[in-house]
């Protein structure tokens, strides 16, 4: 701070300030300190980002415009040829379609289920921590173990699920021959692993919703479902967006489950469940050993994720805003309810006034036997019933 007070008055008197310009080194250091320190303090983030974010991204871009063999190393500059090659390969497009299909089959039920589970866990439960930890267990199971277990369930000839279908007289499903069935099976593994994880994140958000809102909602006469739709969902909007975005990124990058769905790990003989990342892996480390093309795939995938992420973001924001609208609707209704309550209260007061003046003292036991007007009396009773 001494530095500051020194330098500022120094600057303030305009040009005739030349002599004191000869500042000492320590003073200059001090000035640098002021100017640079903030940047230094936040630099770890930027260095880290440059190291693990920007550099790989840019280097991948560099690789993608070169011929680059896994073993042979860097070759000639080829411009966008790698991108053109990849886009011309039908397998690439098939892998994109597979990725979307598996993503849709996993993300949608997964989020729906996660929200439901979170809402249930948000209630006052006995041994709440136990249940909350319980939903996280699948996430802790190693993907390899998941694939071993589900591999047995989804085996075509001797699988448990097909055996059970046989018991109820249904035809076995060709989990590895039917394209949609294979996507369903893989999505099941994904859901098994990630639902609990997302549920916990959503639960954390739900716990942060002020309880007064629920009390207010209860007073307004909202049931459980209504509270969930009109209070919980709008309140956890930011977290929902976060979960949807991470689920999107994860869904676009799905690899483990698809890779382990059969022994060859190439998405089946017709590439029926080859996802884009699996395709990338095959191009780079499989038979093509072509890092250039693989880098091109990586960039295409990156752009795709950004695109889908943006679409998702707008959609979820829209949905969440829709929820907000609904909350204004309910506010309107609240006003209406309050207004009606006021009217009722007035009427009740009026009725009470009549009562008190009419049949005042008799303890109120058999209150108003032949009591005067019927209408206010009925509303009074109604009011009381509502209060209870």
């Amino acid at each position, binding site marked *: 701070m001494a530095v500051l007070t020194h330098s500022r008055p120094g600057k303030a008197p305009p040009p005739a300030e030349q002599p004191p310009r000869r500042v000492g080194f320590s003073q200059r250091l001090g000035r640098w300190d002021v100017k640079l320190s903030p940047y230094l303090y936040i630099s770890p983030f930027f260095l880290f980002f440059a190291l693990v974010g920007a550099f790989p991204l840019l280097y991948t871009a560099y690789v993608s415009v070169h011929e680059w063999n896994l*073993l*042979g190393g860097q070759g000639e500059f080829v411009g966008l040829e790698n991108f053109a090659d990849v886009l011309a390969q039908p397998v690439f497009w098939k892998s994109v379609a597979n990725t979307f299909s598996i993503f849709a089959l996993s993300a949608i039920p997964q989020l729906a289920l996660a929200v439901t589970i979170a809402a249930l866990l948000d209630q006052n439960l006995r041994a709440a921590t136990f249940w909350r930890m319980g939903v996280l267990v699948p996430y802790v199971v190693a993907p*390899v173990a998941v694939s071993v277990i589900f591999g047995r369930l989804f*085996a075509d000839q*001797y699988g448990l699920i097909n055996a059970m279908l046989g018991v109820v007289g249904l035809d076995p499903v*060709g989990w590895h021959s039917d394209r949609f069935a294979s996507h369903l099976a893989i999505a099941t593994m994904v859901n098994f692993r990630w639902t609990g994880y997302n549920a916990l994140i959503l639960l954390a958000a739900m716990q942060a919703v002020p309880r007064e809102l629920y009390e207010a909602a209860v007073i307004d006469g909202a049931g459980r479902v209504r509270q969930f739709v009109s209070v919980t969902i709008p309140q956890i909007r930011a977290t929902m967006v976060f979960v949807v975005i991470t689920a999107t990124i994860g869904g676009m990058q799905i690899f483990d489950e698809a890779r382990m769905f059969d*022994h060859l790990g190439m998405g089946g*003989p017709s590439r029926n469940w080859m996802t884009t990342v699996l395709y990338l892996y095959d191009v780079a480390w499989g038979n093509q050993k072509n890092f250039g093309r693989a880098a091109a795939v990586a960039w295409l995938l990156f752009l795709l994720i950004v695109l889908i992420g943006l679409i998702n973001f707008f959609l979820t924001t829209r949905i969440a805003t829709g929820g907000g609208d609904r909350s204004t609707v309910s506010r309107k209704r609240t006003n209406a309810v309050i207004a009606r309550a006021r009217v009722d209260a007035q009427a009740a007061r009026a009725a009470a006034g009549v009562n008190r003046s009419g049949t005042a003292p008799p303890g109120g036991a058999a209150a108003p036997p032949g009591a005067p007007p019927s209408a206010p009396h009925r509303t009074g009773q109604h009011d009381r019933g509502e209060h209870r």
Partner: protein
Amino acid sequence: MPSTRTRLPRLAAAATGALTLTALAACGGTGDPAGSGGSGESGDITLTVATFNQFGYTDEMLDRFEEEHPGVTVELITADTSEAARTNLTTKIAAGGEGLADIEAIEVDWLPELMQYPDLFADLSDPELEGRWLDWKVDQATTADGRVLGYGTDVGPEAICYRQDLFADAGLPSEPEEVAELLGGADATWESYFEVGREFVASSDAAWFDGAQPTYQAMVNQLDAPYEDAGSEEPLDLAANSGVQDVYTQVLDAAVGDELSAGLQQWTPDWDAAFQNDGFATMVCPAWMTGPIEERAGGVDGWNVADVFPGGGGNWGGSFITVPASGAHTDEAAELAAWLTAPEQQTEAFGNAGTFPSQLEAQASEDVQTATNAFFNDAPVGEIFAARAEAIAGVPYKGPNYFAIHQAVQDAVLRVDVTGEQDVDASWASAVEAFNALGLM
């Protein structure tokens, strides 16, 4: 890959995925074993040996080498599958050789792609070692200009493993000698093998063999130059490759047309389960396959090995150990590699892990010749596989594109036999399409 010796196949795919990361991580972590022993002045060096599955190298064995070579410490690194080892190796080569072990094991099927870069490996040619291995084994690892990139460890001579009890139930002769005779003895052909199969399935609920794909693999391994021209090393146009197409059609006609196949893909849970469900009666059986069968068929009696193989001898699998040129102690590593592949050590390894040695002396040794396998009803496996190894006339030419083209056809076989998505002709057309997409022509 069906062509890889995957002992823990269910984990194979998984591990490959995981290992990509591990391999990358290991780049940083184990970057120094080559250099950690110092510059060699003191004589204290550490040699690392990277293998996969089970090579049969034990700590006791390595201790012996250390005793004979004071100042040398040997460390064994074992990947669980050959696929994992392959990924690890190629990734580290791509990273400039940093972090490679002093000795790297390589499987025969992914050797050709590495043979394109002979400079990555130390030349191990040594006149003193001539005549140690089967000739074709040495040829596989020898470049055109005479550099030897690896020493042979084991080979995979193929026999037929079969279910004695199912044979008997179907009214067929079931003793190993009788079965060998039934399948055609020394003149066994694939046609005679399929013929017996037709007879078998007519009177049994079980299929004749596990799947068309391993059968196809065995048949292709008997062609001289299946997918590539041995002279020019150029890939052959698959659309015009009648040799491969004939084999493809023959195996699928038998598998699907005559319903000889159980329609299983090897190393899948279905395949595993079929061992316990009497799914099939015979299978193509390289020496190392006896391990996986026993692992899956535990509690099932009646497995045996017949000293016969359709179409003559055949080899499936087998490995080499190489010395990456980037290592700090290539001379010492070469010495260790020679020691590990010496007949005594390979004989011991066969006893430990069932890897059939590629060394002539080891094959002829008492220990190997008299080995029996209790699970296979005390079949004299040493004698049988030695005989099967002798029957191997030569091995097919496999160039750098073998893996890619083979996969295209293999996928076609799976589409017909396992998933039933396409018929024989349509699937072949798809294979040609996949081949064209490789852009090799």
